[in-house]
């Protein structure tokens, strides 16, 4: 028995040692590489394709499917030529980029479900139907306004997008001349997706991807104004945002407008650089939400007569955290998808972008959780979820330009920042934000924009240039202070222009239909007065002492 035991031990060690033995390092001089020989059309004739008899038996291991037989030939009499081969390579590249961008867009579209249940969970049960319906309706209203007007304003002058096979049709930008330089203000081609040749496969891909981004910005406002927003006012406001507010700033940043050209025209780094939309999507939504929060006022019972805030807890933390996970999943479409391709032009950086995204989300969640734990003694669930989202919002702009360590730093700062911002808006500004959308998207959207100007490491390379300036986007900490100025210019446009524009329209809607529901409806809950049906008809809803 003992003998066999030692035999086993010896064999085990022997096998371990054998497993660890390095491969032979004996080297022989490499054979001289053969001189390159140009391929001709006649070489292609000798490429073997699967025999019909073999193909007829099926292809269980996949070795017979996808061969030279599948390359489309222009002239069947001549057979396959070099030209056919090169065309197929080009089409494959664009096909990869189309599929990548479309699937990323589908993921972003699913974020609407995440927003819907996060917001509904953070609201009271008596407003569940109303909050869900706002999130459901904003998808259609936003899409309609963007299809009719917004897309052309945003992308009508973008010019060619090399990753999608170029689009010469979106080439008309309205610009003014300021300081002897052109300032692109809005695009003019692509209305109804038919105008000026916009009925084009690449334009359709861009439309789908940009449309779901725009809808993300719109749905941020519904969270801040929840539990007291008149449904008709919400529809008018959303239509305006989808048609004008969002597309104008998006044109300045992504559509060839003046912010994107700050580098080429004024020597400010690579111009305003917002890889996936911390500013374009989240800060636009968050600052519009801030304006709406100021305009519509706090919920009844949120503040006592001395102005002290009361906590009004949401009704379902399970919905909230599930929604956060859905959003984090969708963010893998948001950020890596913003390359608009997976093949060519430095697009293999999608791996870094995806990892940066998940790291910053993790760091944001931890940052918020630890902050709340240290400050209040408990790791608050809803703020942990908001911390995750804050980290994701903040990394959205820099995700394509920074390294993993900086992503974690950006995320941690975002996680703490969102907690501080929620307290600031709640206690100092007295702006009631039931879901913390202003802090998550507005404050951290601005932080994300600024962080590009600080942390961009100059190692990314998307086809050799960005915004028409050669080289890589490089922030202050890596040697380019001009990039920080370009980013702050974007912040100023967001805070000074976007906020004001949307607020003025909010005033117009207030004048037309009124923004806020009557006090009686708010006390009852908006489900019956506004929507005609309860969200939870079989539940008995009890009124809380504070929640009114």
């Amino acid at each position: 028995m003992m003998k066999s035991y030692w035999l086993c031990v010896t064999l085990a060690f022997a096998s371990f040692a054998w497993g660890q033995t390095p491969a032979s390092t004996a080297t022989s001089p490499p054979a001289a590489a053969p001189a390159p020989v140009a391929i001709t059309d006649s070489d292609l004739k000798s490429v073997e394709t699967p025999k019909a008899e073999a193909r007829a038996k099926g292809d269980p291991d996949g070795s017979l499917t996808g061969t030279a037989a599948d390359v489309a030939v222009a002239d069947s009499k001549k057979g396959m030529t070099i030209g056919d081969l090169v065309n197929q390579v080009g089409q494959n590249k664009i096909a990869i980029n189309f599929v990548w961008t479309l699937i990323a867009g589908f993921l972003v579209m699913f974020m609407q479900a995440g927003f819907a249940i996060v917001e509904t969970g953070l609201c009271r049960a008596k407003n569940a139907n109303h909050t869900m319906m706002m999130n459901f309706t904003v998808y259609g209203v936003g899409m309609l306004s963007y299809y009719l007007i917004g897309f052309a304003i945003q992308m009508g002058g973008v010019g060619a997008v090399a990753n999608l096979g170029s689009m010469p049709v979106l080439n008309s930008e309205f610009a003014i001349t300021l300081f002897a330089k052109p300032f692109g203000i809005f695009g003019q081609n692509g209305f109804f997706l038919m105008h000026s040749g916009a009925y084009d496969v690449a334009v359709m891909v861009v439309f789908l991807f940009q449309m779901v981004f725009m809808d993300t910005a719109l749905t941020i406002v519904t969270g801040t104004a929840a539990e007291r927003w008149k449904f008709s006012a919400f529809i008018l406001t959303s239509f305006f945002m989808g048609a004008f507010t969002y597309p104008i700033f998006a044109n300045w940043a992504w559509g060839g407008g003046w912010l994107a050209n700050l580098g080429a025209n004024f020597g400010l780094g690579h111009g305003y650089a917002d890889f996936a939309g911390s500013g374009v999507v989240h800060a636009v939504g968050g600052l519009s939400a801030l304006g709406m929060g100021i305009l519509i006022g706090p919920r009844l019972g949120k503040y006592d007569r001395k102005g002290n805030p009361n906590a009004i807890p949401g009704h379902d933390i399970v919905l909230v955290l599930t929604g956060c996970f859905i959003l984090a999943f969708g963010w893998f479409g948001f950020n890596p998808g913003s390359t608009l391709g997976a093949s060519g032009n430095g697009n293999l950086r999608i791996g870094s972008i995806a990892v940066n995204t998940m790291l910053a989300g993790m760091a944001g969640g931890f940052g918020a959780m630890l902050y709340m734990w240290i400050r209040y003694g408990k790791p608050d669930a809803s703020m942990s979820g908001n911390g995750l989202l804050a980290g994701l919002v903040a990394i959205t702009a820099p995700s394509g330009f920074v390294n993993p360590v900086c992503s974690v730093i950006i995320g941690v700062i975002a996680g703490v920042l969102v907690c501080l911002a929620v307290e600031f808006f709640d206690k100092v500004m007295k702006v009631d934000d039931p879901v913390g959308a202003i802090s998550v998207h507005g404050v951290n959207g601005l932080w994300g924009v600024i962080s590009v100007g600080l942390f961009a490491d100059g190692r990314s390379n998307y086809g050799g240039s960005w915004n028409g300036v050669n080289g890589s986007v490089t922030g202050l900490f890596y040697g380019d202070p001009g990039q920080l100025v370009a980013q702050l210019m974007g912040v100023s446009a967001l805070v000074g222009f976007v906020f004001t524009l949307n607020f003025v329209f909010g005033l117009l809607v207030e004048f037309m239909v009124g923004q806020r529901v009557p006090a009686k409806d708010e006390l009852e809950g908006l489900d019956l007065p506004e929507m005609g049906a309860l969200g939870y008809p079989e539940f008995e809803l009890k009124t809380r002492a504070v929640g009114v």
Partner: protein
Amino acid sequence: MILVALVITLFGFIVSVLSLGMASAIFVRLAMVIAGIALSFVGIGMLTAAYGKNAVWRK
């Protein structure tokens, strides 16, 4: 008051844009843009104060 606050908020943005034409030194531009952002935040603060005077919890 609301109108003044909105004008100040927008004016902050204009100050930032003017930095492009009025200065070429990077740190002067930086200072002007930061001043513009600060001005816009002052405008938003004034707007909040203006609405806070008639807030529902004061009634």
